């Protein structure tokens, strides 16, 4: 339930907090990345950096997290908190925030991070900026929360001047996780929060993990060959895999290709998928919706293959071929194979050192 109180005096709020998200006893990579940025902000504000870890039997995880740069971790241990659930987690966070009054709270812009933040900001009646990619501190000491708007066509600076804490969720892979130092000193504090079984209002009944295909993942690859709704059929993705193999790259996809059930969710590029920054991004049968651009527009070189010369993706292409992908892609494969057969070396990505 909401407080309905007028905003409290903001000078009572101190410290930077990072919500630590975990799955199966592991820290989510976005949480490690957050610790790095949180550290920078805490130092800027001359304050401490705290990780908050609700869970069950997570002390080791807490100590591990400190290694990324935390001053302390608040652990709330309860069997109810074993896996993430909206209401219990929101209860825990709300109580802790009211108790300790942090100035800044950061979440990963993951599904759970947004699920939690969205519920919490309404309960605490404070500001929450979604999906931030950059932070600053303004002259008055407010957190300048910078996030893309309209799929990255512009960047909005969000301020939360009167209310505390200032909360933001942070997009994955925007910040680099700091090196881990297992010897870093830090405190693990156990806090009690009253939770009753009545707080559990929803139950996770089943979990079916996405199968991670072996081989090169798009996020690690120098070359990404990405297929969209124009691929028409899941079996046509084999052709993209051939092309990717020839180039030493990985296959990715647009959300519409994923939503059509053609390829696993794990390889979705875009605002609600992954962000990739390969040396070469080849988009095949993808129109170029803003949500897709959000995940690939920072690629070094972009190649677009599309039947429709007016497809928006051509606007950000380095090279484009207007044509039928079912002719163009096999032709690319053929010519690359020919090159490989005749040429001395294999056409793959030029090693970064050679550039």
């Amino acid at each position, binding site marked *: 339930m*909401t407080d309905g109180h007028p*905003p409290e005096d903001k000078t009572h709020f101190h410290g930077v907090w990072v919500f630590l998200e975990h799955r199966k006893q592991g820290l989510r990579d976005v949480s490690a990345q957050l610790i790095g940025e949180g550290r920078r902000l805490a130092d800027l504000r001359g304050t401490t950096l705290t990780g908050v870890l609700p869970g069950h039997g997570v002390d080791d995880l807490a100590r591990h997290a400190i290694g990324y740069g935390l001053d302390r971790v608040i652990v709330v241990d309860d069997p109810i908190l074993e896996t993430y659930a*909206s209401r219990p987690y929101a209860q825990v966070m709300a109580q802790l925030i009211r108790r300790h009054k942090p100035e800044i709270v950061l979440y990963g812009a993951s*599904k759970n991070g*947004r*699920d939690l*933040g*969205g*519920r919490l*900001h*309404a*309960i605490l*009646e*404070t*500001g929450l900026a*979604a999906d931030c990619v950059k932070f600053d501190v303004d002259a008055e000491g407010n957190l300048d929360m910078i996030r893309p708007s*309209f799929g*990255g*066509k*512009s*960047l*909005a*600076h*969000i*301020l*939360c001047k*009167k209310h505390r804490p200032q909360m933001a969720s942070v997009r994955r892979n925007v910040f680099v996780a700091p090196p881990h130092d297992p010897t870093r000193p830090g405190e693990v504090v156990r806090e009690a929060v009253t939770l009753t079984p009545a707080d559990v*209002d*929803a*139950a*996770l*009944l*089943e*979990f079916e993990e*996405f199968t991670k295909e072996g081989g090169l993942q798009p996020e690690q690859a120098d070359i990404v060959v990405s297929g969209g709704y124009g691929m028409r059929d899941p079996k046509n993705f084999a052709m993209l895999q051939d092309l990717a193999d020839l180039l030493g790259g990985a296959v990715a996809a647009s*959300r*519409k290709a994923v*939503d059509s059930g053609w390829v696993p*969710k794990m390889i979705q590029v875009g*605002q*609600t998928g992954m962000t990739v920054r390969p040396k070469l991004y080849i988009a095949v049968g993808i129109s170029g*919706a*803003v949500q897709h651009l959000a995940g690939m527009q*920072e690629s070094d070189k972009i*190649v677009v293959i599309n039947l429709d010369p007016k497809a*928006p993706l*051509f*606007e950000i292409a*380095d*090279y*484009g*071929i*207007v044509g*039928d992908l079912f002719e*163009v892609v096999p*032709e690319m494969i053929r010519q690359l194979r020919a*090159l490989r057969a005749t*040429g001395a070396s294999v*056409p793959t990505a*030029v090693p970064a050192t050679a550039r």
Partner: protein
Amino acid sequence: MTDGGTAGRPRRIVVCIKQVPRAQELQVDPVTQTLKRVGVPSEINPPDANALEMALQLKDRLGTEIVVLSMGPTSFDESLERAVAMGADRSVLLTDRILGGSDTVPTAYALSETIQKIGGYDLLLCGEETTDASTGHVGPGIAGHLDLPQITYVSEIRIVDGKVRARRTAEDGTEWWGTTMPCLCTVNFGCNRPREPTLTGKIRVKRGGLVTHWSCADVGIDPKKVGLFNSPTIVAKVDTVRLPSRSGQIFSGEPGASVRKLLASLVADRVIAA
């Protein structure tokens, strides 16, 4: 898809929809470097259309009343009428000058109050996020205000023994959640194909009376908790993103020649080795 029979079905579903400019047609004005919004046609926020379709499918299977709710200017009537023409039973627009400039905190609060005034709901559906604000915070915010169970990023809902089973898509897998009604779910974009309005639906719209307008006073919304000045966040400024300039060479014509030119360019740029 199977439900456990119509017993214990939701009596009333409230679907929250927002009208947004068609994302594809938004362009940055090259002179002012701001987004050109005027003259851009509007649509129902695409994930909200999926939420509505999900409600309509529940109605088809189990029978239930669907009330569509939106907060915004009266131009949103266009989308609310479309929702009724698609098969919603009626719609409510919370519209009031003082709501202007609300961020997600007042929006979630005002929608919650309006949902309570509508009353009798068993299921609340939102979209996963809007294409213009893209926060995804309003849905969970409503659940927080109303202290209801929430399941986000849902692609499928079944009703079994008066309980909700929802399939949620997380980053690393698919989850099935179970909860009781009333509850709130936010619906994944693209999880279904929203239907077209029907002739019968359009006639119902024409006959009138199915889109209700409420002001804050009608609902009993505290004016001190809504609007620009009562929103915790402000947009201090907006920078235009200047993307790296791209060479923009487009080849067309015979595929063999296009591919040859492309590969030659990539080799010349040392993106691939020859």
